[in-house]
């Protein structure tokens, strides 16, 4: 009787593992859990400048200040990717593109180990560091 219970218990636990452990590939690929709009506003700020190169250089300097090593940089596309290794792996991509003819939009997204970073706080920290490097304030984008 007891043995039977353990078997039943194991089967139940096994299914629980399936539910907890495996989000579907599609869900993982498209990160469908997060609200797209909300994520954008967390990850994006506008700066009152049109100097894309200067902004990208400030992004690179900020990433270096935060302990990242640059992986890729593309001035034409306006993107910079970098990785921070500090017992953990944190990967970040920052893109810069024009918004209207007076502003630039800076968008950052980060991946901590195997999970996307979706909390507002790390991004607030990043943009506050970037503001200092840019000598410009970052505006929220609706």
């Amino acid at each position, binding site marked *: 009787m*007891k043995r039977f219970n353990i078997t039943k218990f194991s089967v139940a636990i096994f299914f629980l593992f399936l539910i907890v452990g495996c989000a579907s590939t599609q869900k993982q690929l498209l990160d469908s859990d997060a609200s797209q709009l909300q994520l954008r506003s967390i990850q994006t700020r506008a700066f009152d400048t049109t100097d894309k190169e200067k902004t990208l250089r400030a992004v690179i300097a900020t990433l270096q200040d935060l302990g990242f090593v640059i992986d890729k*940089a593309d001035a034409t596309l306006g993107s910079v990717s970098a990785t921070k290794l500090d017992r953990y792996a944190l990967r970040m991509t920052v893109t810069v593109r024009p918004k209207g003819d007076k502003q630039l939009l800076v968008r950052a997204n980060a991946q901590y180990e195997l999970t996307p970073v979706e909390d507002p706080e790390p991004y607030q920290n990043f943009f506050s560091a970037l503001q200092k490097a840019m000598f410009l304030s970052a505006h929220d984008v609706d």
Partner: protein
Amino acid sequence: MGFLKNKSLNLKRYSLVLFSLLFVIACHSRIPSEALKLDSESLQKRQLQTRVFQTNDESKVLAACSSLLQDLGFNIEESESELGVIVGSKDRSAVSAGKVVGSLLLGVLTGVYVPWDKNQKMRACVVTKPSGEEKKNVAVRVTFQRIVWNTQNQITIMEGLTEPEMYKEFFDKLSKSLFLEANEAF
């Protein structure tokens, strides 16, 4: 009765183990709060990793950095001269005799195979930036990091390298490299 009691204890222990395992799998590993925050060490590190050269020719400095990375055995992975970025990497052995002996001894004592560090990937990133008033100087900042794998191909170390001596040696060599470039000796 004693048998039953034992069983229920086992069941309890069993569920505890499974529960913790479940926790590990489902674990919402969260980003450390200081990961993207500037701290008091940031400025110190920046100073350690940066030197300013008296020239307004950024591309010349960048070319010297690229030759230097090659001198040091790095393969260039990525470069974007418009933004002053060069990234290089190299794979090297991470075997240290002391650690191997330690692992083997521990293995013999415990009867369990104890892996040791086998290889490492080292990365270097050089960023140049016009600096100073009227942009008459070029600041060069270099950063190093490495990942170490053990004999079972598991990652054992992921770290940024911050020993001051590494940076000092790098910049000593860069000064020489710049001198060589300036004189077109090679």
